[in-house]
């Protein structure tokens, strides 16, 4: 057994070295743009309720599924540019692209909307690739990916009409959406370029604001590179009443479907009144490291996964 572990850890070493470099360059990237690196708690009294994200319980509290609520409480107190690299926990998520404990790079910028935050992601990835000595063509799983800017944007409506033949904005259907996204839409993306999927159905807005001129669409985006879902982006919702309504609905559904009781995040809802106009992103650092190390399993970039810890 110890021999297997030694062999595995030795095999991982080049990837882990690169991972450390990626952290270093990422921190430099944000620092140079005036972002403050912060830390928020990993064990928390409540979380943003999401029907399809199951938290681990820790006595009466939870292990953090995302640092979003605490970082927004800081934004509301006047921290206008902040970022964090933090461990997040999501129960039952295990596969080639998932480990129940993973690392999130999360940042928020006052005055920005989702379009500007997408540009942050573009700049970050291009900067990291260049500092690692890769040029604008990244090799991933036998495919050359041209990451030169700007990356193509495609709306959810267009992507679904093209690959699945229906419009999820006009006829929202979340089960059909999730299934078709995985089995039809994602496989239709060209692999030689990143894809930014923008403008999600309002029902999937979560903590994003709706478009001022089109209430059926949320200002939310997801970035995909080489088949990897890399990051989720919002123009952040600032309407406490609307946010509480969405949370309330999610809490009810979670209780009904999983029997889990999640408390309404009251302190966060109080802070929302002071939230400046802002945009933010959550980027799965493990997957970014997978991409830049050209490996196709998250097990190749995490020292000890749920199966080897």
């Amino acid at each position, binding site marked *: 057994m110890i021999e297997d572990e030694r062999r595995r850890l030795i095999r991982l070493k080049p990837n882990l070295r690169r991972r450390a470099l990626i952290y270093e360059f990422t921190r430099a990237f944000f620092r140079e743009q005036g972002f403050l690196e912060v830390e928020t708690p990993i064990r928390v009294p409540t979380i943003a309720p999401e029907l399809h994200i199951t938290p681990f319980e820790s006595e009466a509290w939870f292990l953090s599924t995302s640092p979003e609520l605490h970082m927004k409480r800081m934004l509301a107190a006047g921290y206008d540019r902040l970022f964090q690299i933090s461990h997040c926990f999501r129960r039952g998520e295990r596969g080639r*692209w998932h480990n129940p404990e993973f690392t999130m790079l999360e940042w928020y910028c006052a005055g920005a909307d989702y379009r500007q935050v997408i540009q942050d992601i573009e700049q970050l990835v291009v900067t990291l690739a260049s500092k690692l000595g890769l040029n604008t063509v990244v090799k991933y799983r036998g495919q050359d990916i041209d990451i030169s800017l700007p990356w193509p944007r495609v709306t959810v409506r267009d992507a679904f009409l093209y690959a699945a033949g229906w419009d999820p904005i006009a006829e929202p259907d*979340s089960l059909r959406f*999730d299934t078709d*996204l*995985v*089995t039809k839409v994602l496989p239709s993306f060209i692999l030689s370029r990143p894809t930014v999927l923008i403008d999600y159905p309002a029902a*999937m807005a979560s903590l994003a604001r709706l478009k001022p001129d089109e209430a059926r669409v949320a200002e939310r985006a*997801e970035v995909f590179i080489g088949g990897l879902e890399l990051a989720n982006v919002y123009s952040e919702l600032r309407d406490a009443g609307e946010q509480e309504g969405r949370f309330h609905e999610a809490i009810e559904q979670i209780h009904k479907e999983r029997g889990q009781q999640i408390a309404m995040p009251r302190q966060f809802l109080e802070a929302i009144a002071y939230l400046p106009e802002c945009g933010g992103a959550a980027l799965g650092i493990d997957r970014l490291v997978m991409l830049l190390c050209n490996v196709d399993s998250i097990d190749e970039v995490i020292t000890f996964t749920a199966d080897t810890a």
Partner: protein
Amino acid sequence: MDISDVHKNTKLLVDGIPYNVEEAEFMKPGKGRAIYRLKLRNLLDSSTADRTYHSGEKVEEAHTTNNEEQYLYKEGEHYVFMNTKTFEQHFIAEAQLGNKKDFLKEGMVVVILMMGDKPIDITLPTFVELRIVESGVATKTGTITPQTKSAILETGYTIAVPAFAKEGDIIKVDTRTGTYVERIGAKK
């Protein structure tokens, strides 16, 4: 069982048919449901099937056991096996055995996968020793590569053997590939 508990090599019962999960891919885009894409192998006829499930779905586990059983004899279209512990006998149809029947010798102990009291799969030893009952004359087709010729084993299986192997010899056969490994005993 919950779909989230399904892993590679879990045995499932889908529409009453037992399958082995050959591959289980977990996908979960954005904040949506988890999607599980399974590659399944039908344990009765080895055909394959793809199935997609989403989080929250329940699947039926096929409750299986592995028994050590001894192959006794062939009766009509069936091969008769006996559990080495309980002495219970089980019949497996020739069609269900597929190529595996080519390496079954009376008295051989194999592992049988049972679902309830129904045998659904059989695992042979990796190597078996079988006697050549008939062998042809080596064809002189080349002088550099070792010459081979065809021979018939006691199970009726036709195999390529080196020119020196002859009727009555015992040879070792790899059951995964169905190929000759080495000669164990020459006929005196």
